[in-house]
């Protein structure tokens, strides 16, 4: 059996294997959490068919996420890491030829996370960052900024000129007008127009995290605020609510958050979708004190039990796949003899993801 193994970054012994520089003045060690994540695949049951996987990997995010180690062991002849795509999204590509007797992959990641809390204080933001943020004003196939989206955005923000206040109005409007629909597959399709069409017909919008984040992103972009969805996965328990947490088996714990950009502050994290999940899981009213308090908190906050992958939408994978442009990349993407393998069905890949929080 031909077996390939690789490891990036330095795997240091012990649980705490990062430098103190990872901490900033506004963070304390109490918000630090380190996780080992193990993602295993077995596509052997696809027999004499060509199989390819593109797996999203985490990347470093200053003051929030630090990737300490990524390692993979596979019986494929071709397996490598790449970020060669429009969004620079870290990807593990693995390919098995038809003749491969077994098709297995074991991917390990160690990630350190802090709570990401915005203090909303003015600070100097690097001009390069301001410039690069402008890319996230543009529409994509799934994120229109004209038509109904533009009209709705105008209705929500009115004459408000302050971008931070406009962003808050949009965030509050999403929470007030949407609900979590558990019947939606995976994280949803992330189509703002579909959500707004539902609102027009039914008076409310049902969906999941990608649906609400995508709508929030589209409305913010239409209001001249750079914004982007961030695909990721819950990797541990939450200190705030069971609704936001995950147990050790995180195979189905994918979750999309979002962030927006204010030139005098930088990228600001938020998560309107999780407030709708809180309302559903805790059976509380969206106008209750608890829902309002957490809505306030989640405007400018990501908890340290969620790992980010990327902010890619409507982009081409590398190496190129047979099916073409991918709409989002929060799940593994796989093809068997060029046909799409349903990402929302782990059994098709026989994959499991296990996360363990390390003692500090």
């Amino acid at each position, binding site marked *: 059996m031909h077996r390939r193994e690789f490891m990036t970054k330095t795997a240091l012994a012990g649980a705490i294997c990062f430098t103190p520089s990872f901490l900033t003045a506004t963070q304390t060690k109490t918000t630090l959490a380190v996780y080992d994540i193990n993602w295993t695949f077995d596509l052997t049951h696809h027999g004499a068919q060509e199989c390819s996987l593109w797996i999203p990997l985490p990347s470093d995010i200053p003051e929030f996420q630090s990737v300490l180690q990524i390692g993979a062991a596979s019986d494929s002849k071709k397996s490598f890491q790449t970020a060669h795509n429009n969004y620079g999204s870290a990807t593990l590509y693995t390919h098995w030829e038809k003749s491969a007797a077994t098709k297995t992959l074991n991917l390990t990641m160690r990630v350190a996370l802090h709570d990401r809390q915005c203090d909303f204080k003015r600070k100097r933001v690097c001009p390069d960052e301001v410039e690069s943020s402008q890319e996230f004003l543009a529409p994509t196939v799934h994120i229109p900024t004209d038509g109904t989206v533009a009209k709705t955005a105008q209705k929500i923000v009115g004459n408000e000129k302050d971008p931070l206040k406009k962003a808050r109005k949009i965030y509050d409007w999403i929470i007030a007008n949407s609900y979590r629909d558990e019947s939606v597959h995976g994280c949803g399709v992330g189509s703002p127009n579909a959500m707004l069409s539902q609102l027009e017909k039914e008076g409310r919008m049902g969906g999941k995290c990608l649906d609400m984040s995508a709508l929030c992103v589209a409305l913010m972009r239409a209001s001249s605020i750079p914004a982007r969805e961030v695909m990721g996965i819950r990797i541990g328990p939450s200190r705030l609510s069971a609704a936001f947490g995950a147990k050790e088996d995180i195979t189905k714990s994918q979750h999309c958050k979002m962030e927006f950009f204010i030139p005098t502050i930088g990228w600001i994290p938020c998560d309107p979708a999780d407030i709708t999940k809180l309302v559903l899981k805790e059976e509380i009213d969206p106008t209750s004190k608890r829902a309002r308090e957490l809505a306030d908190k989640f405007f400018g906050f990501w908890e340290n039990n969620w790992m980010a992958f990327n902010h890619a939408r409507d982009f081409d994978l590398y190496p190129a796949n047979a*099916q*073409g442009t991918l709409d989002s990349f929060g799940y593994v993407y796989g093809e068997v003899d060029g*046909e*799409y393998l349903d990402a929302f069905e782990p059994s098709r890949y026989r994959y499991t993801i296990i996360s363990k929080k390390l003692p500090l």
Partner: protein
Amino acid sequence: MGRITLGLLLLATLAYSKEWKLHIGGMHCIACTLAVKKALLGVPGVKEAKVNFKNETAFVITDETVTLRSMQNGVAQTGYTAKLAP
């Protein structure tokens, strides 16, 4: 004797297999290929269907009973369109 009968049956099945190349309209993401494939395989007489989002096509293998209209009806029920590809 049994083997010969089986062989003849297999030959007959292969002989009556028909290949179609369809243009599929209305797919907005790769996951749509799953719905189209399911719809095509739900049409009685369809043996195999491979759907491609990038090319907006479906390659379908059917028996002799299947018509373009029956596949169009099947696909239409899931909100997509099908016509013969050039």
